[in-house]
C-alpha cells in the first residue's frame, strides 16, 4: 500500500514538473471523456423528454395518415439482415427507383437497439401501401362504426401562415382540428374555451392560441374576443392554452388551432386532411383497434380484398420506439466519434511516456543500481501513465458537467450526468493509461543499469 502511494507521489511529481506538457497530453483524454459523457447524458435527456411528451399524450393514441406511394412498409420489424432482403426486393419491384425519403429515414429504425416491441413486429410485416387521401368522411365513418376508438379527431396542419393582431404580425404554425383535440393531445385550456362541435359543424371563424402566441402578441391584454387575421381572414380568439413544452423540438406553444372545416373552406381550399388521431378505449386493445380501424377505412375507401391500403396506421408506441431509436443511433454515432479522440489521447500518452523514459534514463539507472527490480520500474511508469490518463478522465468529467450545464441553461433539455458513463469513462481512462503506458514502461524496465547510469 505504502509502495503504491509512493509510486503515485512520484507520478504526480513528474507530472507537475512539466505542467504544460502534461496538460497537453491529457487534453486528448479530457476532450474524449468530456464529449462521450456529455453526448450520452444529453442524448438520454433528449430521449427522456421525447418519451415524456409522447407518454403525456398517452400510449393508447393511434394516428392514421394518408398512404404515400410506396410498395412496402414495415416500420418496425426484424433486424438488419431481414431489412437488407426487403431492400433488395423493393429495388426489384420498383424497377430500381429510389425510395421516398420518409422511408429511408424510418427504415433502419426499430429492432436493432431497442430489441423492438414484439407485438408490433408480428403485426406489420411487409405491408404494401399505395397513395391515397383522407377526408372528414373517414372521421365520421370511424366515429359511427368503431367500438374500440374514442375521441376521434381530424388533423390538418397548414404550416406557417401569416398571423396578425393589430399592427403586429408574423408567421405561425396553424393546426386545424376538431373539438376532440384537447383530450387527445393533453393540451390544457388557460383562458376561454376550446372550440366546440358547433364551431366545427358550422365552420365558424374562431381560433385558440398557444401560450407563446399570447405572450408575444397580446402581452397583458386579455385576448379572448379579440379579432386576429390569418392569411388575411378574420378570426375571433376563443381560448388560450397553457404552456405545453416541446415535442420533437416543436412546441404547441407557438401554434394556433382552428376548426378543420373553417380551414378547408377559407385557407386550404381542399377537402382532404393530413391525419386522423384517435384514442383507443383501453391499452389492451391497441392491436385490435388498429385492425378494426383498418377494416372500417378499407370499406370506406372501397378497397377490394387483396388490394393494398391507401392509408397507414401507427400507434404512439411505435412513434416512441422510432424516436428513441433515432436518438440512440445519434448518440452512439456521436459517442463513437468522441471515443476516437480517447484513442488519439492514448497515443499521445504513449508518446509522452516514451519521451519521459528517455529523459529519465539516468534516474532509472540510479534506481536500479540501488536495488530497484525491473518490476519496480515497470510499476512506476505504469502508475505515471495511469495517473496522467485518469487525471485527464476526471478533468473530462468536469468538462462534461460544464457542457451539460450550458446545454441545460440554454435549451429546454434537463440533462443529468448519470453514474454509469462516469464510471465507464474512469475505467476507460485507466485502461488507456495502462494500455498505452505498457510499452514505454517495459522499455524503462528493461534498461540495463550501467548503460543508463552512463546516459547523459
Amino acid at each position, binding site marked *: 500500500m505504502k509502495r503504491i502511494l509512493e509510486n503515485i507521489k512520484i507520478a504526480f511529481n513528474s507530472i507537475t514538473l512539466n505542467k504544460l506538457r502534461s496538460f497537453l497530453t491529457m487534453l486528448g483524454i479530457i476532450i474524449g471523456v468530456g464529449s462521450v459523457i456529455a453526448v450520452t447524458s444529453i442524448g438520454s435527456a433528449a430521449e427522456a423528454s421525447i418519451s415524456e411528451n409522447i407518454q403525456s399524450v398517452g400510449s393508447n393514441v393511434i394516428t392514421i395518415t394518408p398512404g404515400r406511394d410506396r410498395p412496402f412498409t414495415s416500420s418496425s420489424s426484424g433486424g438488419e439482415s431481414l431489412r437488407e432482403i426487403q431492400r433488395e426486393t423493393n429495388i426489384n419491384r420498383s424497377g430500381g427507383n429510389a425510395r421516398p425519403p420518409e422511408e429511408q429515414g424510418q427504415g433502419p429504425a426499430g429492432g436493432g437497439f431497442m430489441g423492438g416491441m414484439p407485438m408490433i413486429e408480428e403485426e406489420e410485416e411487409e405491408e404494401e401501401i399505395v397513395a391515397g387521401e383522407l377526408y372528414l368522411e373517414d372521421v365520421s365513418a370511424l366515429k359511427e362504426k368503431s367500438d374500440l376508438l374514442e375521441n376521434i379527431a381530424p388533423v390538418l396542419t397548414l404550416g406557417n401562415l401569416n398571423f396578425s393582431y393589430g399592427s403586429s404580425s408574423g408567421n405561425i404554425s396553424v393546426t386545424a382540428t376538431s373539438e376532440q383535440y384537447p383530450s387527445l393531445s393533453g393540451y390544457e385550456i388557460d383562458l376561454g374555451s376550446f372550440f366546440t362541435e358547433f364551431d366545427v359543424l358550422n365552420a365558424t371563424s374562431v381560433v385558440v392560441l398557444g401560450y407563446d402566441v399570447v405572450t408575444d402578441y397580446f402581452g397583458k391584454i386579455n385576448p379572448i374576443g379579440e379579432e386576429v387575421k390569418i392569411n388575411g381572414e378574420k378570426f375571433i380568439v376563443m381560448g388560450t392554452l397553457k404552456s405545453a413544452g416541446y415535442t420533437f423540438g416543436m412546441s404547441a406553444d407557438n401554434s394556433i388551432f382552428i376548426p378543420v372545416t373553417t380551414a378547408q373552406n377559407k385557407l386550404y381550399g381542399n377537402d382532404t386532411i393530413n391525419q386522423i388521431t384517435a384514442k383507443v378505449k383501453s391499452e389492451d386493445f391497441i392491436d385490435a383497434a388498429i385492425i378494426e380501424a383498418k377494416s372500417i377505412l378499407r370499406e370506406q375507401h372501397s378497397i377490394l380484398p387483396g388490394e393494398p391500403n391507401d392509408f397507414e396506421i401507427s400507434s404512439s408506441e411505435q412513434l416512441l420506439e422510432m424516436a428513441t431509436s433515432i436518438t440512440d443511433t445519434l448518440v452512439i454515432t456521436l459517442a463513437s466519434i468522441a471515443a476516437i479522440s480517447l484513442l488519439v489521447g492514448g497515443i499521445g500518452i504513449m508518446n509522452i511516456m516514451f519521451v519521459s523514459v528517455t529523459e529519465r534514463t539516468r534516474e532509472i539507472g*540510479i*534506481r536500479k543500481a*540501488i*536495488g530497484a527490480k*525491473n518490476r519496480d520500474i515497470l510499476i512506476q511508469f505504469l502508475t505515471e501513465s495511469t495517473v496522467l490518463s485518469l487525471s485527464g478522465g476526471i478533468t473530462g468529467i468536469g468538462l462534461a458537467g460544464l457542457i451539460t450545464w450550458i446545454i441545460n441553461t440554454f435549451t429546454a433539455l434537463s440533462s443529468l450526468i448519470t453514474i454509469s458513463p462516469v464510471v465507464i469513462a474512469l475505467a476507460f481512462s485507466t485502461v488507456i493509461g495502462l494500455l498505452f503506458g505498457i510499452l514505454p514502461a517495459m522499455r524503462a524496465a528493461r534498461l540495463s543499469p550501467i548503460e543508463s*547510469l552512463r546516459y547523459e
Partner: protein
Amino acid sequence: MEKKIILTKEITKIYKVGDIKVNALRGINLEINEGEFVSIMGPSGSGKSTLMNILGCLDKPTSGFYYLDGINVMDLNDNQLAEIRNKKVGFVFQTFNLLPRLNIIGNVELPLIYSRREQSRARKDLINEVINSVGLAEWIKHKPSELSGGQRQRVAIARALINNPAIIMADEPTGNLDSRTGEEIMAIFQELNRRGKTIIFVTHEIEIAKHSGRIIYLRDGILCGEEKVKEPVNACKMLENMPKLEDKINNFSNNNSNVI
C-alpha cells in the same frame, strides 16, 4: 582464517562495440576478506570501472566465477542481482547520482523503498540516524542542487549505508571534489572501515589510494600487482594540517584587495 567476502576466479568481460570486441577484463583472480579496505588503481581504460561494476553486481562477467559473501553471482537473474545490490552492496559514485527531485530524506530512503521493509516508525529513526552519522542533520529537507559537492557525496554515502550492507563500493568517490572535501569523505570511509565495513574503491590518485590497507593495480584488464600499505594515511590527521576553505578565501581576498 578470515572470511572471504569477495572471491573471483578468471573473470573476463568482453564488450561488443559494433563488430569490434573489446576485452575489458581478461581473467581477474581476486580475494577480499571481510573488513578489508581495498583500493583498485589503474590508468583510464584499464578496466577498473568494469571490474567495479561486476563486483557491485551492476553487470555480469562474460565468463569466470564470482562469489559474493558465499553466493555464486553467476547463477543469479536480474531480479536476484537487484536484491544483492539492495541488501549486500552500498554504491557511491563519482558523480553522486542522487535524484534531483527528491530531498535528502527521499534520496537516503530510496533503497529502503525497494527492500520492502515496512515498520514506518523504526524506518524514520533509521533514516535520521544515518543522515546524522554523515553530519547532514540540518539539511534533511534540502534538495541535492542546494548542497555542495562534499555534502552530496555524504548523502550518497548515507544512501549506501541505509540498508546496512556488508560492502561499500565507491567508484572514484573523490574524483569530483577538491582535496580538502575529498579528505573529509575519506575520513568517513576510514571511520566506516574501523567499524567493520568492507570497503572497496576505485581511484587513479595514489594519495587517495594510500588511505586504504591494500592497493591492487590493474592494467589492460589484468591484475598486475598489489601492495600492502604499511601505514595508511589517517584522513583526520591530514585534515588538521589542511587550511580550511574559509581561511583560503580570506587570504585570497586580503592579498588581492588592492587590485580591485
